[in-house]
């Protein structure tokens, strides 16, 4: 039937977030005007630069879908990075140091979850508080100095390639697949959407809602801690302020990817596109030698442009007469 075909087409148009169209346009524009943009090494470079951001943006997607927010991710990542570097500097094996970094992240994630879910604090306020604590701890531990002399194990691992693909891209892809699998193949996907869309329905379905909700924040902390592996590996050192503000890039990537703060609507594929769009934009502007101060503004423009494209698509794709 013709109307069915149109409905299908409408479905596909809407299932691609606005950023998907923006990403294609950006790549075309930069490829045309930026010398050396459209080369394999540069694309790998974009992937490497986006890998840490993706590790944060994945759990951030779940948190935002549940109508929450985690502002502490960047600071927790900085702290975990410092912990990782310090332990390596003291001669501990890599896996012990990594476990410690992940543990620090997990602890902060659980703390965020308890503050938001159990104590009922607004996520913005609760995670702003833990942001301060994590940042402060990172500075105290290091005296504000970088932690250097972390040995060769981590830098060597970071520089390694698997089938020609840089290590950090492999890790980011594995994380993406794990999250994607969790959301599409297990109950987690339904529950996350229900948390934001209709918490009451989830309660009445007999699910331990609070525990699950805390678990989402815990995942955010854990991923922040694990991301220290890539961050510290890239810099071959631990900087107490290395990841300041990265949580805002993560939020931007999630929003650009079409996830909304309301009603439990969002996709991980959208977030991946969001991360890539931000990466391409940064990289492309660099290639075009745009001053870095202007690049900051460009992310803001990107977020707004993506939302405008999204609402335009939504308006075009909506069947006549139905309410949004």
């Amino acid at each position, binding site marked *: 039937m013709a109307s069915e075909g149109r409905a299908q087409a409408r479905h596909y148009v809407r299932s691609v977030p606005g950023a998907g169209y923006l990403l294609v346009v950006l790549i075309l524009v930069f490829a045309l005007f930026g010398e050396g943009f459209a080369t394999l090494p540069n694309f790998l470079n974009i992937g490497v630069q986006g890998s840490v951001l993706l590790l944060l943006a994945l759990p951030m997607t779940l948190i935002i879908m549940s109508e929450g927010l985690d502002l502490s991710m960047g600071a927790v990542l900085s702290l975990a990075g410092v912990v990782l570097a310090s332990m390596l500097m003291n001669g501990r094996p890599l896996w012990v140091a990594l476990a410690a970094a992940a543990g620090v992240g997990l602890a902060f994630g659980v703390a965020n979850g308890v503050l938001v879910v159990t104590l009922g604090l607004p996520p913005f306020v609760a995670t702003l508080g833990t942001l301060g604590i994590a940042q402060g701890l990172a500075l105290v531990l290091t005296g504000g100095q970088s932690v250097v002399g972390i040995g060769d194990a981590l830098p060597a691992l970071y520089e390694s390639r698997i089938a020609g693909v840089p290590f950090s891209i492999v890790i980011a892809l594995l994380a993406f697949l794990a999250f994607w699998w969790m959301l599409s*193949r297990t109950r987690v996907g*339904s529950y996350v959407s229900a948390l934001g869309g209709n918490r009451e*329905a*989830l309660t009445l379905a*007999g*699910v331990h809602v609070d525990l699950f909700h805390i678990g989402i924040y815990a995942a955010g902390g854990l991923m922040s801690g694990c991301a220290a592996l890539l961050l510290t590996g890239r810099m071959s050192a631990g900087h107490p302020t290395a990841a300041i503000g990265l949580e805002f890039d993560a939020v931007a990537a999630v929003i650009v990817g079409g996830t909304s703060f309301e*009603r439990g609507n969002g996709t991980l594929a959208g977030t991946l596109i969001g991360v890539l769009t931000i990466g391409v934009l940064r990289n492309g502007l660099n290639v075009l030698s745009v001053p870095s101060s202007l690049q900051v503004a460009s992310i803001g423009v990107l977020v707004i442009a993506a939302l405008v494209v999204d609402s335009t698509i939504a308006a075009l794709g909506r069947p006549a007469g139905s309410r949004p």
Partner: protein
Amino acid sequence: MRGISKAFPGVRALDDVSLSVDAGTVQVLLGQNGAGKSTLIRILCGAHHPDAGEILIDGRGVRLHSPADARRLGIAVIFQEFSLVPYLNLAQNIYLGREPRGRIPGTIDHRKMHEEARRLLDGLGLDADTRTPAHELGVAQQQVVEIAKALSQNARILVMDEPTAALSDREIARLFDRIRALKQSGVAIVYISHRLQEIFEIGDRITVLRDGRNVASLAPSETSVDGLVRLMVGRQVTTTWRERFCDTPGDVVLEVRDLHAANGVRAAAVDVNAGEVVGLAGLVGAGRTELARAIFGADRVVSGTVRVAGRPLARGPAGAVRAGVALAPENRKTEGLALMRSVQDNVLVAGLQTLFPAGWYRAAIAARAAADVISRLRIATPSPARLVRFLSGGNQQKVVVGKWLIAGSRLFIFDEPTRGIDVGAKAELYGVIDGLVAGGAAVLMISSELPEVVAVCDRAYVMRDRAIVGELKRRGSRSDNILTEENILRMAMHHGQ
């Protein structure tokens, strides 16, 4: 359920209520708004805990600490408020929390889930794709999904809270076929509906609640629609709260003709005259608040006219306020008041234009105006500087009235003005309303409490399905258009159509 009692702060919702249902039968639960039906259901599904009483299944006492407990014991509920998740697809919604497991631990067997959802929806006559997100469906279709969700639990006790409220005749017929099949297989069904006719079609026993108590338990053959209405209303206590009713109304203040609004209100025609209190009665969800919001300009009007004192209203709430229309909303705490500000700030907020036309705030005039309103309405507050948060519900409602008095309003629309306030405060508020109309204002009052409508209003419109279905007068010409509780209920409940 035996001897169930439950109190909420300020309200005794259930008092020694019992309800029993046999396997393979439909037990109908009937009562007015606020009779305690919903509270009873929420106790049965484990969402509320009773203060006293016991629940027995197969003769054995059970304790329901949570909805999960109820579900384990085979109790499923179709809720009146939709429990669907907007961005999950139909199959995910139907099996939320009970997803069929895949071979790998922790995974979902999507194919099985969609196949079974397909079978359930086919049985109910809904041919929507199971991969459609729930928010893309219309209300009737969502209701069908809700029913499918409850059926999928293979419950032994199935509670249906107004399952047919949004359904068309064809879908209702399908649902009744399913109910008969469920009876055959021995499921016990508790059925709540405001459509009295269908109760006779589907019910085996009828239990009537009134004011949180059992008033009757009988078979459909022992009664009639009129008999049920009488049981729900109860003994006629004619108390009136007004000094005297309005025999000779003044000029037309509000004139609404053929109003259609985006919120679903259809073809509404309303007149309110100076000196009159006009009721807007009907069941919860009949569209009364929506009509009030459309008149006030808070929801978009599609077609039709709203005139105040003969002049058409300008667009939006600002136009209504300028023409002298005041709205005291249902949720006074969130929509009508600034709880963290003082009584004086609250009563002045809508009248600043009137009091200070030059835009120059003068403390002395403000204080005098506030003091004047506080004494006129007898708002019980130690001082005008008291935060509204600390006032009682009745006094908060008076502050809302006072706000519009200062603004010089002549048409007051009250939405459930006495909800959640005690009897003494209600009487005071009726006095305030009486004072308003005595001073030449007009009042349109939405109320779900039938005795209140009969005791306070000069006339009343009755709404059902977002349209006005009748008008009742204190001095009606025939027995069926006099303002009584029975007549309101009869009109509101789809009788005689």
